[in-house]
């Protein structure tokens, strides 16, 4: 079973990765972080974090605001370079950044063409089907899309490159309940449609979102992993907590004490 270990306190025991910020590591785990830390000025956004994310699962990354979720996911996506430690991810990774950024002046069709231009294994048919399923007008400029539509566009771009690992950073944080439901369903559908056992890692500060689609849970707080494991086993040994939400809150409280 994939385990976790995050010690408090960081004292430069781990050599920062001086070469590539992300090593490619095609084994059973989708992500493996070892002594991973990221510091901004004097503040550690993520501290001495060791964790593995199993391949072939939909993994929820839960934690309060400022827990280090975005830092961890951007390290995995290669957008950030670790201050300490190493992180290894599957070679082909799709990433949807927080807020689903898109080029306001480019149309939906332009974005799909961009995906094709920038990715070796682009699936144009899949991209068109995804865009159609999301109800996206190809001629519409991204700047005029609603938040929900932009999130679907970003998901389309990330899925059509046929990634082994799909990372979604707070994809539904700013969406209304209906758009939120549609987005999560489209993620589930995209995973089901791919026959390659895509791993999805998706962060949220709401346990309910995670519970709906995830089979594996990681709780992050204060830049450290607090709890990790398959949802079923976490619920089986839930220490008398009534729901997953209560379990997560219990672990977050235990830490702050």
């Amino acid at each position, binding site marked *: 079973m994939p385990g976790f270990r995050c010690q408090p306190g960081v004292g430069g025991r781990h050599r920062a990765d001086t070469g590539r910020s992300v090593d490619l590591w095609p084994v059973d785990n989708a992500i493996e972080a070892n002594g991973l830390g990221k510091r901004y000025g004097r503040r550690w956004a993520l501290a001495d974090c060791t964790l593995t994310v199993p391949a072939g699962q939909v993994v929820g990354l839960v934690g309060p605001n400022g827990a280090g979720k975005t830092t961890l996911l951007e390290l995995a996506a290669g957008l950030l370079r670790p201050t300490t430690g190493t992180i290894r991810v599957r070679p082909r990774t799709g990433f949807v950044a927080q807020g689903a*950024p*898109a080029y306001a*002046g480019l149309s939906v069709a332009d974005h799909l*063409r961009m995906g094709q*231009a920038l990715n070796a294994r682009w699936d144009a048919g899949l991209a068109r089907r995804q865009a159609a399923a999301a109800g996206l007008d190809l001629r519409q400029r991204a700047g005029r899309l609603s938040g929900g539509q932009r999130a679907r566009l970003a998901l389309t771009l990330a899925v059509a490159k046929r990634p082994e690992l799909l990372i979604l950073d707070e994809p539904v944080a700013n969406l209304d309940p209906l758009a939120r439901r549609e987005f999560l369903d489209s993620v589930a559908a995209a995973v089901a449609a791919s026959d390659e056992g895509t791993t999805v890692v998706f962060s949220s500060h709401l346990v309910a979102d995670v519970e709906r689609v995830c089979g594996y849970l990681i709780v992050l707080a204060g830049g450290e992993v607090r709890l990790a494991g398959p949802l079923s086993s976490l619920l089986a040994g839930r220490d008398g907590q009534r729901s997953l939400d209560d379990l997560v809150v219990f672990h977050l409280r235990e830490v702050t004490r």
Partner: protein
Amino acid sequence: MTWLAWRQARAQTLIALTAVLAVAVAAVIAGRTDTTHRMWLSALVVAAPGLLGAFLGAPLVAAELENGTFRLAWTQDVSRVRWLALRLAVTGLASMAVTGLLSWFVTWWAGPLDRAGLDQFGSFDARDVVPVGYAAFAFALGVLYGLLLRATVPAMAVTLAVFTAVRVAFRLLARPVLLTPVTRALALNPATTGYGASGFLPFVPGSSLQPAAPDLPDAWVTSVAIVNGKGIALTGSVLARTCPGLGQGRGGGTGHVQAPQGAVNATQDCVARIAAAYHEVITDQPAGRYWPLQWYELCVYLAAALLLAAACAWRVRRVG
């Protein structure tokens, strides 16, 4: 990939191109005879590279960092460096092409006036090929400051300031000596040498003898000095000792205002006495060096632009 880079540069490039075409049409309609129009067109050629560097170069990466779209662009299969290289190439070439077109047009438009003026080096910065080098340099400078400052507006301001400083410093310190100037020794001519102050207003040195410009059409005279046989420059005290009373009247010499005949005679008499021990030494770039200097300066700026582009590639890998 090239398509994407062009798609992202298209709007600004077409705006700049439209502006150039509008100026060209207006200038042709106005006719090719007015030296004031020529001055404005030259100023436009001088300003264009910096403006393009600020408006096309500075936002190239800074806007991506500000809008968060770098998280989209840099998480695709194509590496950051390759992404940047193509965007630098396409947008940079667009910037150079717009500047080149403007410079080519102004060079053609001002041709008759320039040839009549016999002062080709006077408009060196605003004609022919060098503006293309300035455009490449300003563009790469803008991209680099966008990467360093991570904010579009400050990067635009710093780009304009640094580009202007580099251009002025290069013009004053480097261009005169890019090719070793030709040195000529001439006898002082009492008929064409006056007395007065020279230099720009904040730096007016003491008044001295002022030889008239030598008759070197289309050449660039980079320095004029009056020295004796040992190469020592004429000092104010030597001048005062040799010619007591010089400059006490109401002026004289070759100025536009006709001086009293007495003062003219006194000045000519003085120059004749000075000329016994001193002569004039000028350094210049002859007319035939115009094109070698154009190509040389173009290459220097293009090389600097390539170095800046390499710095951008190094820097973009270290963002985050």
